[in-house]
């Protein structure tokens, strides 16, 4: 056939019949485009570590919904969710 594929056998003899052999005297006009960054704002931070999320997608959805539900809607509602400090025994009446 004279094409770059040579005389390799093919399942259907009509396959690759349209292919024209590449002509060295007429180089292809197709030059693949290359892109270069013009700034470095989108560079990853030097200490970035990419790892797999341990929570599976179902749990991620549960956590996402929980965050939406429990996100305080205004500043005054913050006192409803007390600080998660270590357990402190409350002063008992007999003390």
């Amino acid at each position, binding site marked *: 056939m004279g094409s770059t594929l040579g005389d390799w056998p093919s399942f259907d003899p009509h396959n690759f019949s349209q292919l024209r052999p590449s002509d060295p005297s007429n180089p292809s006009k197709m030059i693949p485009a290359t892109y270069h960054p013009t700034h470095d704002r989108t560079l990853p931070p030097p200490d970035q570590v990419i790892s797999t999320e*341990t*929570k*599976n*997608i*179902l*749990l991620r*959805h*549960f*956590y996402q*919904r*929980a965050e939406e*539900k*429990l*996100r*305080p*809607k*205004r500043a005054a*509602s913050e006192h*409803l*969710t007390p600080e998660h400090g270590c*357990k402190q*025994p409350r002063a*008992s009446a*007999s003390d």
Partner: protein
Amino acid sequence: MFRSNNVVARIFQRQICTPAPGTSVHCARRFYENLVPSCTIYDVECPDHSFRKFTDDGQYLISFSRNNQDLIVYRPTWLSFSCKEEDCDSYDLPLKAKRFESFFTQLYCVSLASSNEFICKDFFLYMESNQFGLFATSTAQIHDAPATGGAVQGIPSIEKITFHLLRLEDGFRLDERVFHNDFVNLTHSMGVFLYDDLLAIVSLRYQTIHILQIRDSGNLVDVRAIGTFCREDDELFLNSNAQRVAGPHQLPRNHVENGLDHNQINMNNSFLSGIKQRLLSFIFRSISNEETDKTLRMQCLKKKFYFRFQDYVDLIVWKAQFLDRHHLLIKFGSVDGGVSRNADQYPAFFAVYNMETTEIISFYQNSADELYLLFEHFCDHFHATSRNPLSMSFISSHSNNIHALEQLRSIKNKSSSFSQFVKKMMASLPFSCQSQSPSPYFDQSLFRFDEKLISATDRHRQSTDHPIKFISRRHPYSLKFKIKPGPEAGSTDGQTKKICSFVFHPILPLALSIQQTLFLQSSVVNIHFRR
């Protein structure tokens, strides 16, 4: 990927074609369209045991003796026979080959239950990585048991439930865990969930989820007990504070044992259990965060929380499953629904609980659309698959199989009310582990079969005289094989109801069908295999 249905052509094609990325197992499973258990040995003479299931790696067949006291384990093999004729395929199998022993060799018989105990036939969990098997024996159930020692009123009691951990290779008993005067739902392994090496046992009577770890050495180690207390040191903290409050003259320090008991009884009266406290505070916070206006918020809380406060307090844990190593999906409901068979009519709630932080992450009612959407999209993640067995992720569900999804959609469209449909779907959550057979013959993308007569879930079904057809899903959509339970000529007695169960080997084209009448013990066992 395969152009032809011929197995030889497929093998040649497999040599040169690479399957599409991520589908190598699916392509390999397509060979099961060619190797089907089409040959049946009817009413094979076999020992009178109840054959339970094959382990998921296909190494062992688990069966129990009729008196439910012994465990008998077989190794599945294959028959071998010689034929001196020229065209052997046309000849029927020699009688000597058509035996139970051709396919199964007995490895050992171990007695699990003592005189007044019985093996729970429905219960069996397999830990594939170490080839450990978990079995349960129990004494008789006592209904109307008094609610002593923190037990919930209305839940029956079993005097002794023992979980036995055995090494299936040789039947060696590794460890056991005993629960006294407790109740764990053992039918179809519903009250126990195995995830990797973690075991969650739901004690309905004492409302505790016991988390145990199965070590490689075969020991059952307690990890935590969620219920009255959430963190491991809660009990210690509360006891040390209660002693301080009561004063040293009431509780002498050296009699710590008595003191703890005394405090425990006090605490059961005054404190809600740890998990209940977490649940109520989560419900409170999520309701109060809905409204920004103070008066509206109070109204909302009154209507949705305080008005229903006692109902929330009366909720009990029904069932639990692992979602991953740290998270549990817990189903809550009323006491009545906890033990009834038809729990659909009772309202139920789902909560996602993080065992490490002891926080409730989500709380839904069983009619919640949001939860149903997550179930529809991520059903496979509810079937919490551990890292090891590959076969588990190929069990057809509506999240990984287009045909199963179409089935689900057709049920959804046919149902009259969407909320009823959602409740019906949610009734299957939390899933029981290892309840579906990994056999490729149940793969919905390979075969089509009548789900009412046979399916991957191992439950007893109504038996029919007609054979169950397995039709291929792909062109030419032809009948591939039939499974006919019961004797070859059909049953002479058409009146008595018969139930049958199917035990499919996970890898080999081998299946057992066991048909039995409801009241008589005798059963007809057929072996279906590829000749």
